[in-house]
């Protein structure tokens, strides 16, 4: 027996939790303290997960910082607030209650934060108050007597500016000091407050506020002026529609020069490989499989960047909560909760974060409805498919003098997705569940902020790298698969048909043919749809590879021309209709499973979308054919 190994006491880093009202800048602080790049935006309910980061204080102390969803109290009314409650109280198995709670407050909007601070005092852990957004408070002439507030509240009070260099120095110093002499764990006296207690606490908070804060009371002048237009009952709605319209037009129109440049690059690369002294099979793999396949997807990077630019600017400005306000009645008519708007709008980028952000919706059925319809919103992965087909089949001319016809078709595809989502939620809520007039819509409208160039740039960069990483992993591997399927088995000696007709791909595509025949799909489309289940944009790359092997000549920028020559207009439109509705994304289905906690809802989503897609494509093709476009 060997001697006992020297026991090393596990050094457990102290845990510091950031808790506060929605939109007070917790995540901005978290990012500043830990150097991470979690999502920050100017609307309540951005963070819906617990995030842990590490940092070492100037005094050399290692600690863990926890960023949490914003909340008005620890009562936890929705799934995101439950995460905060459990993290603060240490309820769940894995949750250790924090050694120190930093109550983050928006210094220009302290009233509700002070009530939360009073509530947090009862958790039995040391608490400190961080007056964040001090820059804004100062600019507005709000004077806070921090010493007085600290004395009255019985908590240490520091100021911070999360978005400025050095803006967290005081906070860090204070955290260091607090951790240096942690009191023994106190008794928790928190219990779910009733209305009387809450009222009492708010009155107490109002007294504290009156004693130590002086403000010339009024609203932020810029916000008031902007809202008089942007929240105007009529003008507000018109502007919202105009913004969405410009956004989708821009995705189509502004991106073109950059896309053409990228396509040129790939076609040059293809030619280069084509003329290299390599074995034919390897040449085909590089040229048709990798360059034509992956290249045809990367071409769409400019569009993705433009779309995200718009979404990020709207989020940072503080417009999202306004849009939810404007849309509340319209969405309510379809049975959707007002809070569903922001998740659905984020789904234009990608349904996955959209589905995650439904955690802010408290009612289970409201949340489920939103989750079920979110994949119908036109996500950015559909853009390549739409762009390819529109570019090939819709003439590039202006209507009414200023709107591009192609952009208009793009817009109507977005509209079709939205209409589909509203229709499905209507059927679910009003016809199947017969949900009574349920949950209230209550949402704080934050003041507008000028987006920061740096955080915009970081946001765009993050998005672009995610897209490129996908192109390099999921899409690349699918492309290799497609190339193999389309190249083997090789044609027999003396074959008369094009080589690809003998391949596995052709066999698979033809096997499905009877099912998709009524939709006007050919076997090439069938083959492209299958890997498209893994990621929608793969379909474009797959078509690139298949037609490249088929015709020999096709590089990334050529698929459009090839497709235009080979498909009828009816087929093209049917494929667009299919793409509006089809459940073509495995990761979305996985997230639905996780967020609903059941396989059932994942399959419900899959099959209802499949059915919608089939019917829509069928109707489109048959109508087009009847009109002579088959």
């Amino acid at each position, binding site marked *: 027996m060997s001697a006992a190994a020297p026991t090393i006491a596990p050094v457990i880093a102290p845990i510091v939790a950031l808790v506060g009202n929605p939109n007070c800048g917790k995540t901005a602080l978290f990012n500043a303290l830990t150097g991470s790049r979690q999502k920050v935006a100017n609307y309540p309910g951005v963070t819906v997960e617990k995030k842990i980061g590490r940092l070492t204080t100037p005094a050399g102390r290692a600690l863990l910082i926890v960023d949490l969803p914003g909340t*008005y*109290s620890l*009562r936890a*009314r929705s799934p995101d607030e439950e995460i905060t409650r459990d993290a603060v109280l240490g309820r769940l198995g894995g949750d250790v209650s924090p050694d120190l709670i930093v109550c983050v407050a928006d210094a*220009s*909007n*302290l*009233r*509700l934060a002070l*009530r939360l601070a009073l509530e947090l005092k009862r958790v039995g852990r040391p608490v400190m108050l961080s007056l964040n957004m001090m820059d804004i408070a100062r600019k507005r002439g709000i004077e806070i007597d921090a010493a007085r507030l600290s004395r009255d509240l019985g908590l240490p009070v520091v100021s911070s500016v999360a978005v400025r260099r050095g803006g967290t120095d005081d906070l860090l110093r204070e955290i260091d000091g607090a951790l240096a002499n942690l009191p023994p764990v106190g008794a928790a006296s928190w219990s779910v*407050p*009733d*209305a009387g207690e*809450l*009222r009492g606490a*708010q*009155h107490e908070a*109002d007294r504290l506020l009156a004693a130590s804060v002086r*403000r010339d*009371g009024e*609203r932020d002048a810029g916000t008031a002026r902007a*809202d008089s237009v942007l*929240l*105007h*009952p*009529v003008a*507000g*709605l018109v502007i919202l529609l105009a913004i969405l319209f410009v956004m989708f037009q821009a995705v189509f129109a502004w991106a073109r020069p950059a896309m053409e440049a990228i396509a040129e690059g790939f076609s040059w690369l293809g030619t280069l490989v084509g003329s290299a002294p390599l074995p034919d099979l390897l040449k085909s793999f590089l040229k048709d499989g990798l360059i034509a396949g992956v290249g045809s997807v990367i071409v769409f990077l400019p569009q993705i960047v433009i779309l995200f630019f718009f979404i990020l600017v709207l989020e940072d400005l503080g417009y999202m*909560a306004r849009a*939810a*306000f*404007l849309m*509340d*009645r*319209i969405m309510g008519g379809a049975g959707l909760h*007002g809070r569903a708007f922001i998740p659905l709008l984020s789904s234009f980028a990608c349904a996955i974060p959209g589905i995650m952000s439904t955690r802010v919706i408290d009612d289970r059925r409201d949340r489920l409805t939103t989750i079920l319809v979110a994949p119908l919103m036109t996500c950015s992965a559909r853009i390549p498919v739409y762009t390819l087909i529109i570019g090939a089949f819709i003439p590039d001319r202006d209507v009414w003098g200023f709107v591009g016809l192609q952009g208009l078709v793009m817009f109507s595809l977005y509209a079709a997705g939205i209409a589909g989502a509203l229709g499905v939620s209507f059927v679910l809520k009003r016809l199947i569940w017969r949900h*009574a*007039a*349920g*949950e*209230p*819509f*209550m*949402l*704080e*409208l934050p003041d507008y902020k000028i987006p920061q160039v740096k955080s915009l740039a970081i946001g765009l960069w993050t998005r672009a790298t995610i897209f490129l990483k996908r192109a390099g992993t999921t899409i690349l591997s699918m492309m290799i698969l497609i190339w193999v399927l389309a190249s083997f088995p090789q044609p027999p000696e003396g074959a008369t048909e094009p080589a690809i007709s003998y391949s596995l791909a052709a066999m698979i595509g033809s096997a499905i043919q009877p099912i998709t025949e009524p939709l006007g799909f050919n076997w090439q489309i069938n083959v492209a749809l299958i890997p498209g289940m893994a990621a929608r944009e793969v379909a474009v790359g797959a078509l690139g590879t298949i037609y490249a092997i088929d015709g020999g000549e096709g590089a990334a920028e050529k698929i459009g021309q090839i497709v235009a020559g080979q498909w009828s207009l009816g087929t093209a439109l049917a494929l667009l209709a299919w793409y509006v509705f089809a459940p073509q994304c495995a990761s979305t289905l996985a997230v639905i499973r996780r967020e609903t906690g059941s396989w059932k809802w994942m399959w419900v989503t899959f099959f209802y979308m499949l059915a919608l897609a089939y019917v829509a494509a069928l109707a489109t093709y048959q109508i087009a054919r009847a009109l002579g476009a088959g």
Partner: protein
Amino acid sequence: MGFRGRIRALAVERAGTGLPGPELERRLIELGFVEGADVELLHQGLFGSDPIAVRVAHATIALRRREAMAILVTDEVPA
């Protein structure tokens, strides 16, 4: 619009909402609607003038009329 007043009481039985009264009351309080707070009606929606955006003390809150019915307000207080 532009109506200003001071909250006199919360009368949740007046709200035609799906939430139980005590729960609605707590939610309103958590958003700062307590007796004595100054409120001002800032904006309203197009359809049925719903929802509304209300300034309560230093925050702006959007909510539906249905729930707002529970907030009893004294008449104009001088600004």
